């Protein structure tokens, strides 16, 4: 029997692995990947809740939005990475610490 | 009040269309910008002529056929209302004509052409707005907006001391505007914030004569207090003594075309303000302060003439002569008779043409000499023998000069004579003293002419060339206007007399 909690568990696993990747990896692209995972976790949650709690279409729409936003975000993020690489010849996250005063 | 004709809208917004066009044309194509501006002003001028043609001279109030009104800011009952009557039409014609001519005379401007012409057209639009607005708020907006292009035109394209002059001009006028703003807001509340609280026509007619106002524990007459506020606001623009000192600075520093507009049109906005706003809205207070206006006008006439005679910079001389001549307008306004008032409006028009000629001619001369000294600070002659060197220029100069000093047969005379006829019975002493202004007016102009034009050609002047075709082309319409309206003033008088008569009748009831 697949219940709501099963979905939530998978979602939680996705979220945690994404969080771990984001915090531990120094490669910016990997961090972007981690963000994608987190977003996917959120999307999965939406679909699950809309399916089990009130059976309508809004959660689906929201997850579609999230996919689009994720794609857009990846595009922007990768663009920044490319510019950053051109400037620094590196995609190491600690090299991007210029905001510190 | 939703009129069928959009003519006034076209006249008002045509210059702004020109501004947009100038912004679109790349700044490298200087000639395209010049031609575009010229065509634009020409169209505006033609539209004003069409307006003149369609104008019904028998109507005293606003011409219903041209009125146009739509709500602008509904919450505060502010409307976009434009209209024309016999007092504003001469000013509109003058604006149309002078801007067209000034574009031609600005052909030689080389410093950032795009900005110059864009600002110039912007100035025209806002000036038109002042003369066409029937909504006090709209009037105020255009009145203030007009300062922006003026500030930059003087401050960027002016002479060596331009920033000082521009700031001075701006602050002076702004000071007056603020007083006017206070008056406007007071009227808005006095009128109960109703639908017509900003409508100049609805405000006019002396509704506030008996209104009292309590302030600082004293009771003031509403109309007298705010008449004084409005008076100062408009008087600075005229300029009435003692608010006149921005004028010599602004004139001397401004580029030629801007001086022309300043003297030819902008000064008239002050007196137009009296006729459109201060007088109709506060007729009782106007009658009460008429003596004061007359004396100030007299001081303007005499003091301006005396100061003009002492000047060694020819442009400054003409600037002070404007002070003197606008004093005659003030005298006519103080008369409050049909002769005097008609004379004042006619003098506004005539001074616009004659003084524009003077400034254009000085500009033409300046392009050749690059200085304006009648007598240099070291005592040597700045010019000499120009009559021999520049015959065409001299003839036009003579026409302008004699028109300016009120020679019969040229335009200045009729208006001055009407003003004197209007004012004599009420203020005999002032008339006697003001006649001295006529004498001094002849004296400083002729003295200047003698020093610059007679005698041998001095070494420096020998390289000057006479007026070229373009210069003659733009002086010609003004020459014709000065002569034709000097002999036959009816075309102008007929359009204004009903409206002026109505205003005089209103004032006569107080």
């Amino acid at each position: 029997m697949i219940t709501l909690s099963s979905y939530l568990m998978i979602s939680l696993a996705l979220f945690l692995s994404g969080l771990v990747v984001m915090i531990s990896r120094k490669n910016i692209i990997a961090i972007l990947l981690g963000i994608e995972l987190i977003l996917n976790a959120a999307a999965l949650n939406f679909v699950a809740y809309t399916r089990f709690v009130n059976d309508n279409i809004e959660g689906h729409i929201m997850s579609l939005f999230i996919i689009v936003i994720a794609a857009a975000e990846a595009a922007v993020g990768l663009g920044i990475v490319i510019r950053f690489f051109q400037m620094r010849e590196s995609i190491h996250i600690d090299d991007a610490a210029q905001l510190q005063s | 009040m939703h009129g069928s004709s959009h003519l006034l809208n076209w006249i008002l917004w045509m210059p702004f269309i020109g501004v947009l066009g100038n912004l679109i044309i790349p700044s490298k194509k200087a000639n395209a910008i010049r031609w575009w501006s010229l065509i634009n002003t020409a169209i505006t001028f033609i539209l004003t002529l069409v307006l003149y043609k369609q104008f019904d001279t028998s109507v005293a109030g606003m011409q219903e056929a041209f009125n146009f009104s739509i709500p602008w800011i509904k919450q505060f009952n502010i409307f976009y209302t434009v209209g024309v009557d016999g007092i504003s039409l001469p000013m509109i014609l003058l604006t149309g004509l002078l801007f067209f001519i000034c574009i031609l005379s600005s052909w030689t401007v080389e410093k950032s052409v795009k900005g110059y012409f864009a600002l110039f057209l912007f100035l025209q639009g806002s000036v038109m707005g002042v003369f066409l607005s029937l909504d006090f708020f709209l009037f105020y907006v255009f009145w203030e907006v007009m300062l922006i292009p003026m500030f930059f035109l003087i401050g960027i394209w002016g002479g060596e001391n331009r920033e000082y002059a521009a700031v001075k001009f701006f602050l002076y006028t702004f000071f007056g505007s603020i007083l006017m703003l206070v008056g406007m807001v007071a009227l808005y509340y006095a009128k109960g914030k109703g639908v017509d609280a900003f409508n100049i026509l609805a405000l006019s007619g002396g509704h506030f004569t008996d209104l009292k106002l309590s302030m600082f524990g004293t009771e003031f007459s509403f109309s007298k207090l705010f008449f004084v506020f409005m008076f100062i606001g408009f008087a600075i623009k005229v300029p009435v003594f003692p608010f006149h000192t921005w004028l010599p600075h602004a004139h001397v520093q401004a580029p030629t075309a801007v001086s022309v507009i300043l003297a030819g049109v902008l000064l008239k906005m002050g007196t137009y303000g009296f006729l459109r706003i201060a007088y109709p809205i506060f007729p009782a207070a106007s009658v009460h302060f008429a003596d004061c206006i007359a004396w100030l006008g007299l001081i303007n006439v005499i003091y301006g003439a005396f100061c003009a005679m002492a000047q060694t910079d020819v442009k400054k001389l003409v600037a002070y002569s404007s002070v003197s001549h606008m004093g005659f307008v003030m005298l006519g306004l103080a008369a409050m008779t049909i002769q005097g008032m008609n004379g004042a409006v006619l003098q506004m028009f005539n001074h616009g043409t004659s003084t524009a000629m003077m400034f254009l001619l000085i500009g033409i001369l300046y392009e050749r000499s690059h200085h304006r000294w009648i007598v240099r600070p070291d005592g040597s002659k700045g010019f000499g023998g120009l009559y021999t060197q520049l015959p065409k220029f001299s003839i036009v100069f003579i026409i302008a000069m004699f028109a300016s000093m009120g020679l019969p047969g040229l335009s200045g005379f009729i208006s001055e004579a009407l003003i004197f006829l209007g004012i004599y019975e009420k203020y005999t002493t002032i008339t006697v003293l003001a006649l001295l202004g006529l004498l001094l007016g002849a004296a400083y102009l002729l003295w200047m002419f003698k020093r610059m034009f007679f005698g041998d050609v001095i070494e420096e002047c020998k390289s000057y060339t006479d007026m070229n075709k373009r210069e003659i082309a733009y002086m010609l319409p003004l020459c014709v206007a000065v002569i034709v309206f000097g002999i036959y003033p009816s075309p102008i008088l007929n359009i204004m007399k009903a409206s002026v008569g109505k205003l005089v009748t209103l004032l006569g009831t107080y």
Partner: protein
Amino acid sequence: MDYTIWAIAPIVLLPFFAFVINAFIVKKFTKLAVTISCAAILGSFGFASKVFSDFVFGKYAEDYHIHKVFNWFDLSYGSQIFKLDMGIYIDNMTAVMLFMVTGVASLIHIFSTYYMAEDKRFGRFFVYMSLFTSAMLGLVLSDNLLSVFIFWELMGFCSYSLIGFYYEKEGAGNASMKAFMTTRIGDVFFLLGILAIWSVVGNVTFVDIYRAISDGSFNGAFALGIPLATFAGFSIFMGTIGKSAQFPLQVWLPDAMFGPTPCSALIHAATMVAAGVYLSLRMYPLMDAGNLTTLIAYIGGITAFGAATIALVQTDIKAVLAYSTISQLGYMVLGVGVGSYNAAFMHLITHAVFKACLFLSAGSVIHSLHDHHTHEHVQDMPRMGGLRKKMPYTFWAMMFCTLAIAGVPFFSGFVSKDRILGDALIMGIASKSYIIPALLGFAGALLTAFYMFRMMFLTFFGEPRDKDLYDHTKKETFSLNRNFPLLLLSVFTLGVFFSGSLTGQGFVKVAGERYEWFKVLITKPKVEKFASYERQPWGNTDIKSNFQLSKAEYDPTYGLPAKEAHHVHHWHLVGALISIFIAFTGIFIAYMMYIKKAWNPGRWVSMFTRWYRALQNKYYFDDFYIGGIIKKGLLPLNNLLAYIDMGLYDRYAVDGWEKVNRAFFTVAKWFDNIVVDTVAVDGTGASVRLFNVVLRMVQSGKIQLYFMIIVFTLVGFIWTL
């Protein structure tokens, strides 16, 4: 009657259109322009002759007038009426003036084609001349003071242009400006007079002014505390003083000779200065009503005598003539003052004829005398002499005119001047206040005869004093455009044309008796006649034929008791004899001094050195006006005011606000800096800085550290739930 506008308007319009056309074509077609100008003035003369002959000889030879009005503009609105009408007014005086002005101007035009032919601005001269003449004709035809003023000022402009004609010369600029400004003083008063009259009459038409005088509208009206008739009359007379160069505004006329000589002839004879006297004649009833006649007589007497004394010491031939003009104008004004209306106007006409001729003759002399060293024409009489043989025509023309101006019997000057002096004498005997003007008049007549003959003798008689100049002068041969105007004018200096016959009997028949035409035609305006005057609307010819002249109006003795009539006749006769005696005495003195050389003028000079110097300096009027009033009074005042305006008022009062503001904002800035900023704001800042030290460590810029913080915060937050 059947006078249409088209019989009158061309008189003024022809020269005016000539001016308009010539102004455009003169540069390219000089010859054509000159022809147009001359043709126009001759055509105008033709029309004027028609009017003149109709009025003088023909159908209207009594007191008719034509009055046509059109509306210039109308400002009426509702109950407020303001109309400005312009119109044409012709009566006998106008007709005579028109004839004189067009006639003299025509001859001057013709002469100018000779005199100006070599000038580089030949054509332009005629442009101004046409405008000048048309302005004068317009003035004469005007029916109201305002249009008189308009043309009056236009003439001022023309004289400005003509006096400044040689604009390369510095002096021309000074002279033209002086002429314009001096006359402008009078003009401003004139305008004031117009305003004053307007306030009473509501109009400035002559006939309406006469009517107002007759119905007493002026009584009880005051301006600035002065009775209005006096105020207005004086103001208008000031106009005359300015335009006709009377004391104390006479200074401009001598300088006016800076212009070309024919223009001097026009200014001195037919146009400019005549206008002033014409105006005071027209406004005589007002000046009479304002009790100004005594003042006018004094001004006239002083001018007549004073100018004559200055003329005694002039060496420039044109200067002598200029002062003689002022002096003769003084006689006309004296005539107005003593009520000798008819004679004053007659002197205006006779003077116009002989003075035009004198100036043209002087021009003819000057033009012939050409200095080969300086390449300029010679005007100095000490360098002339003996020219009679070189230029006989000019000599005879000038001789006739000199005889006329000196007051020799049978010449026109005698007829008119004698009558003025006779009337002055009668007035002087009747009332003490007129004695001095009368005596000044007689003394001036003596001087006139003397200085005019001094001029003649120095110029035409004796030995040539500048041999070189004399030898280079060509002998005058008769040429039409040079000599014809001179000779024709000199013919008309004969008295017979003005008095009607040699014996003064006259040839105009009125009521069975013969009278002089001038006396019949020109009478003082009788204001009562206009009491019921009503103007006709435009288009209707308006001739009043119902005024029957009473004989008293042209016969001074009519109606008087026989004894008084005898008295008047008696004193007229005495006056005539005195003036004849005086004229011949003056001529005799001049003869003894300059022909016989029996009396040495130098002795007189050394006897009265101070007076001589005063005369040479024109009684120091110029020094007083220019050096005193203008240089010491006006210009310092101007500079002071300009300094107050820009140097004090603008600099301190207006720009002073900047200082005030600066002071304010310095205080505000201090408050802002110390109190607000340092203590309050920076104090806060310091406390913040403490946290800052801690937070800096957190703010590593490393994004993963931020993630960690977020995560731990979240976890902690959730934990506390």
